């Protein structure tokens, strides 16, 4: 590991930070276009700020740093509005926005009226890390699970497994059709316009995989021409280029991972070298905006498979290719479809004994179609919007890793609404119902959910109750027996028997500082959670099984703005996910406690951010034995714009803790990363 360069210390303490540039206050009103009536309960977002208009239609976004922003407004029964807003230094802005009545209220095919969720603006995402695996680790209880220091990084939430969090990019799932896991490391933060997290059992509205929540990522539909390159001290390097051409936002990125890096065998222990960890990763996307959106995403990687640190596989190689083509229309009738192809290859010409050399390939093809209709709804005093429709998906796989004839189809019908008792009401309800059916199931599964929201001044109270179901990931169903895996023909889908959630969010002042605080709690029961187990006495054969678990937990967060240039944020989560057996042990590799905190300081042209997150102890088994120690990681970043150049330096894992979420998958530890981004003419 290269030493921490002293230049960064100089950079961090540079007097130029002290140069302040005064922010401005942004206020305004939301009115109905037709009669100029004030509109309450409109959702106004500017950057990471999210507020709701008051009864008189007014809103106050507080102090905003100078710059150009997108001001977005949504309200039930009205067309969404989006406009650019230039915030000048020390010049307050008062904005009046008029909304056009419309029965259309939704801008996503999958995430509907399930509440506002928690929003992270793209600019904040960039400040938190260069890609979303770094940016979202620790954010609002998300834990990113890595298999080592680089490469695939899958998020998990509320003690769920990575395949129990649905991740959407521009409305299309990026969860691997075979494994169910999403890889956040392949999404550059600079490409992201907004990240929205809807925690909780959301499968009623969003479908399979949304057991613990939905992470919805919207990319920028207009990408300013820019190119960036970065270099990390442990040998990784990469680049990203983006532009908008003819209405299409184009993005392309590449990354080269080092083949070796040093790590500690145990905390404070001997040094070792992680080998065969390198590779190349390429990602590209095309995204058009408008009433009809087209999305094309592709990725390719060739990488080493280093194995567990004490049993390295020095010659194992993996490669994968994927391509998704998606189309969706936005309007009263939303139609979307995808075609998706993937291929994987794993090979090892000289595996450690007693394994024989192998070279296995798997190919998959999937297609989905969804149709939903939205219309205004008025019943007595209740007024709002109603959406109904259905979707279907088909996947087929072939190759060495899966059984012959591995195909799976599923379909669903869904209806949901968002209702308020009259204009200006502070109360809204969002009921939803869903019927799911899939291959080899005897009868459709019914899911229900009801969300409620109250807005009382700066306070929002939410409550939800529902159930849900999600199909097993296809890898659980289709792996070949020959690979040390036994199929469980009796494997059942995971069912959220019930889940209740309540939360309160308050915007106000703490110690005379503008502040936002929120507390959420959840409780529920998940039946038939799928866990893999090994039968050591019969040749180390792995097989999936169903286990009932109880889920109980909560999240608390606080954001403070002590000054116009300074912000503090912190989140703590607690999630007890326990198997319903005597002893009630935490499910394996689910930390019960996580904390995160971040500090942002933007004195003028400089921006400085420091992040810290803590992951509590985890158990490598579900029997509460041999816990892995908790770890905490602190990162820092500083950036400055100079003309068309944006310079950013990051120091990751400042204390060199070299944490590993799963034992045996070491990380590089403290590293410096420098990024140079250049706006192109």
């Amino acid at each position: 590991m290269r030493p921490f360069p002293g230049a960064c210390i100089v950079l961090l303490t540079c007097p130029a930070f002290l140069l302040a540039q005064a922010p401005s206050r942004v206020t305004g009103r939301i009115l109905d276009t037709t009669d100029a009536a004030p509109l309450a309960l409109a959702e106004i977002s500017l950057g990471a700020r999210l507020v709701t208009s008051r009864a008189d239609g007014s809103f106050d976004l507080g102090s905003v740093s100078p710059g150009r922003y997108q001001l977005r407004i949504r309200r039930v029964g009205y067309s969404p509005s989006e406009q650019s807003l230039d915030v000048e230094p020390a010049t307050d802005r008062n904005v009046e926005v008029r909304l056009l009545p419309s029965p259309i209220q939704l801008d996503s095919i999958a995430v509907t009226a399930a509440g506002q969720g928690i929003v992270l603006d793209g600019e904040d995402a960039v400040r938190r890390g260069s890609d979303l695996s770094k940016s979202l680790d620790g954010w609002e209880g998300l834990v990113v699970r890595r298999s080592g220091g680089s490469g695939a990084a899958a998020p998990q939430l509320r003690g769920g497994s990575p395949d129990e969090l649905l991740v959407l990019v521009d409305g299309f799932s990026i969860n691997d059709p075979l494994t169910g896991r999403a890889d956040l490391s392949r999404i550059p933060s600079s490409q992201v316009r907004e990240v929205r997290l809807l925690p909780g059992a959301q499968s009623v509205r969003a479908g399979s995989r949304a057991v613990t929540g939905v992470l919805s990522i919207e990319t920028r539909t207009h990408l300013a021409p820019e190119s960036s390159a970065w270099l990390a001290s442990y040998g990784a390097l990469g680049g990203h280029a983006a532009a908008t051409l003819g209405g299409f936002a184009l993005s392309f990125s590449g990354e080269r991972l080092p083949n070796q890096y040093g790590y500690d065998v145990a905390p404070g222990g001997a040094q070792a070298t992680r080998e065969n960890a390198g590779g190349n990763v390429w990602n590209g996307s095309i995204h058009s905006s408008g009433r009809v959106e087209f999305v094309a995403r592709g990725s390719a990687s060739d990488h080493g498979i280093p194995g567990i640190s004490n049993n390295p596989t020095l010659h194992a190689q993996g490669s994968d290719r994927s391509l998704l083509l998606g189309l969706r229309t936005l309007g009263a009738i939303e139609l979307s479809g995808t075609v998706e192809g993937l291929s994987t290859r794993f090979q090892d010409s000289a595996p450690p004994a007693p394994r024989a050399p192998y070279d296995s390939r798997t190919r998959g093809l999937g297609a989905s179609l969804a149709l939903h209709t939205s219309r205004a709804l008025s019943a007595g005093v209740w007024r709002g919007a109603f959406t109904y429709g259905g979707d279907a998906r088909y996947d087929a796989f072939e190759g060495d890793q899966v059984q012959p004839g591995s195909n799976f189809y599923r379909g669903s019908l869904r209806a949901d609404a968002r209702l308020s008792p009259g204009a200006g009401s502070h109360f809204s309800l969002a009921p939803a119902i869903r019927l799911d059916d899939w291959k080899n199931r005897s009868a459709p599964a019914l899911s229900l959910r009801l969300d409620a929201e109250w807005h009382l001044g700066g306070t929002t109270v939410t409550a939800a109750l529902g159930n849900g179901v999600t199909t097993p990931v296809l890898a659980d169903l289709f792996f070949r027996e020959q690979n040390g895996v036994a199929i469980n023909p009796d494997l059942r889908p995971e069912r959220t028997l019930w889940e209740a959630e309540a939360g309160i969010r308050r915007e106000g002042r703490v110690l005379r500082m503008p502040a936002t605080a929120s507390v959420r709690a959840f409780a529920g029961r998940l039946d038939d959670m799928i866990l893999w187990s090994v039968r050591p006495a019969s040749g180390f054969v792995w097989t999936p099984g169903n286990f009932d678990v109880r889920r109980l937990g909560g999240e608390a967060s606080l954001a403070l703005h002590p000054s116009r240039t300074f912000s503090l944020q912190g989140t703590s989560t607690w999630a007890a996910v326990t198997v319903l057996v005597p002893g009630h042990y935490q499910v394996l590799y689910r930390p019960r406690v996580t904390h995160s905190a971040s500090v942002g300081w933007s004195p003028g042209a400089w921006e400085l951010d420091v992040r810290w997150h803590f992951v509590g102890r985890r158990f490598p088994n579900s029997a509460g034995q041999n816990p892995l120690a908790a770890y905490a990681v602190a990162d820092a970043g500083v950036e400055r714009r100079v003309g068309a150049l944006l310079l950013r330096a990051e120091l990751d894992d400042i204390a060199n803790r070299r944490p590993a979420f799963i034992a045996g998958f070491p990380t590089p530890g403290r590293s410096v990363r420098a990024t140079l981004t250049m706006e192109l003419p």
Partner: protein
Amino acid sequence: MIVHRLIRFVAPITFAIAVNGCADTTAPLPPAEEVVLIVNSTEATLSIIPVDAPSSAVKVPLGGTSPTPVGVSARGEVALVPLGLDNSVAVVNLKTATVSRTIQLPANSGATGSAFVNDTFAYVGNPNLNTVTRINYLTGDTATVAVGVFPQGLSYTRGRLFVVNGNLVNFAPAGASWITVIDPVTNLKSTGIDSIALTGSGNASFADVGSDGLLYVMNTGDYTSGQGRLSIVDPVARTELASFAGFGTGPGNVAADATSDHLFVSSYTEGVMEFDMPTRTVLKGAGAGIAIPLNAAVVVDSKGRVYALDTGPCAGGVAGTLHVLRPDLTQSSTIPTGECPVGGAVTLVP
């Protein structure tokens, strides 16, 4: 008068102190305690269960990074648990119920199978390396010697270490198994006959010394097609004396009972099977075993009680079950274990 009363009061106390104070200062040792040791594989713990007080069982976390323990051997107050993928062996002090030392083995060892030689030395199998390592479990010193293909069962008798070579390639039997004989003094293959061929389809994995002094070796076969065979080996002549089929699919370990001269065989599919050593007769073979679900291992205590392990689902924190059978193989009780119990041993802790 006062002095007389004082003498009457003090005298008995003085006498009592004198008698007790001069008693033997070496208190009697606590009685030796026979314990069943159970390896709980997926949670990587060792259960220590006193045979006469099973409710006072304790569990010892074995630690490690990615341990996959499947077996245990014991001698007095010391137990050895090879940790599989951790390439190490845990030395457990059974009196303090702690891991006193973890001894690193060669990289990619896949440590499986162990046997004690004496109060200092023991051997551990390195199946991925086709070697066994002699360890000084008091100091942690190691010395490795090459044996056959995929050594996974070890047994020490008649001054020699008998290494059961499973002959697995890619975790599947590549042919018949054999035994390599090691001289622990030289840590080399024994002079004279150093290799004993076994009959059967390979995957020999367990061995125990019977009350007749012979070595009983189970050839498990391929786990799917009923290839289980029991070999009887003369450790002095170093030759296979007999081989018996009829143990069905995937038989596991064998445990010899000195009180009945019977040998018990565990099996996932058949439960507990039984073999009579003097007459060399299969008493309860495939299709006739005592029904113990998911029976991964069997051990016998000094009173002829048979302990059969039911692994349970090996996930979700669901405990396994130790079925206690009387000498007539009727069940007397059950004892909960940790998650995924797969191996066991019995020892007398002094």
